């Protein structure tokens, strides 16, 4: 039987203003996002979430479930910025020299 003490707490990655300054914009999608170099995680995508919609924890839960199920997935870390905004940080997953082809590229 689980107890409150069994609840897993995930760390929150801090995104600084200097991360933002040397970032490059990611244009795809509806959310504010950029690529930056994180000191421990390497090249990462920061994706800002809207307040009170659970957009951060839902992606985190999906990432953790995929890990438990052994499915290939992007890794997500909960994140907070220097301005107090919440979001997610996802480390770059492409092998060196490889390019990402989005699903829409198959259709059009």
């Amino acid at each position, binding site marked *: 039987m689980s107890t409150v003490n069994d609840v897993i707490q995930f760390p929150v990655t801090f995104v600084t203003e200097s991360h933002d300054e040397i970032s*490059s914009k*990611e244009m795809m999608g509806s959310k504010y996002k950029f690529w930056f170099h994180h000191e421990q995680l390497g090249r990462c995508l920061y994706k800002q979430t809207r307040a009170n919609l659970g957009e951060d924890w839902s992606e985190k839960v999906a990432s953790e479930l995929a890990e438990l199920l052994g499915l290939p997935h992007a890794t997500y870390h909960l994140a907070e910025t220097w301005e107090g905004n919440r979001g997610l940080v996802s480390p770059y997953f492409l092998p060196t020299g490889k390019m990402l082809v989005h699903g829409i590229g198959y259709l059009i």
Partner: protein
Amino acid sequence: MSNVEKLFLAWQDPNSSSWFPIGQLTFDGIMYKFVYTQGARVAENTCHFKPLFSFPQLEKVYTSTSLFAVFSNRLMSPSRPDYADFLQWLNISQAEATPLVILSRSGGQRETDNYTVFPCPKPDAAGQYHLHFFAHGLQYLPQFAIQRINHLQLAEKLCFHRFQNPDDSQTLTIRTDDNYIIGDCPGYLRNEFFKLIICDSSSITLKVERVNLPPTPLQFRLLCHMICLFKNDFHPFSSSEYQPLIEEDANTVAFSLLNG
């Protein structure tokens, strides 16, 4: 056809870091058209370039009434909270912000592939060509150079400077009148302009178009305006590698009216 907008698609070989113009996107107001250029064949022969997933055959013309995903993926959605700021960084008004104008100015580079886009400029009434680009390489500059950029004035004169780099014999840096190095010329433009800059620098004027102050990312900090007067009937981007691989009326692959 004089109002046809034209962009080039360039690919960077991840091993040699060389840039190749590999495709051409045009828009006549109704139809978008993509065709590979002869630079794609050069890239294929020298650096194992493979066709894009969306355009699998080199010798075809691809047409669509909506912008191909390869290009629309490089545009920011107008619904994004940072869209208005982004247009300001590019120095583009809402009224002139068509997809090709935005791509021409932003370069459309992404972290997840090795492509960029740049415009094919047309001469103005005085026969001058105008190109805008963001200075590259600011993330490698010392803080005093960034401070100098932050204090640049609108239309301040800049110049190109050939930098002796053992890894790259054609590095072109951007320099202020008081000798601060404040960035690099984008590699995909350098191919076309290096010889002109070195042999006849009086043909080129370079100046500050806009400085986007912090917290704007360094990627979009310094927008430059290059004005070139070509002599002896030379036209930029007229060499073979910028020309279509095939005649555009042949082998057309028309796409259905998908709303991507």
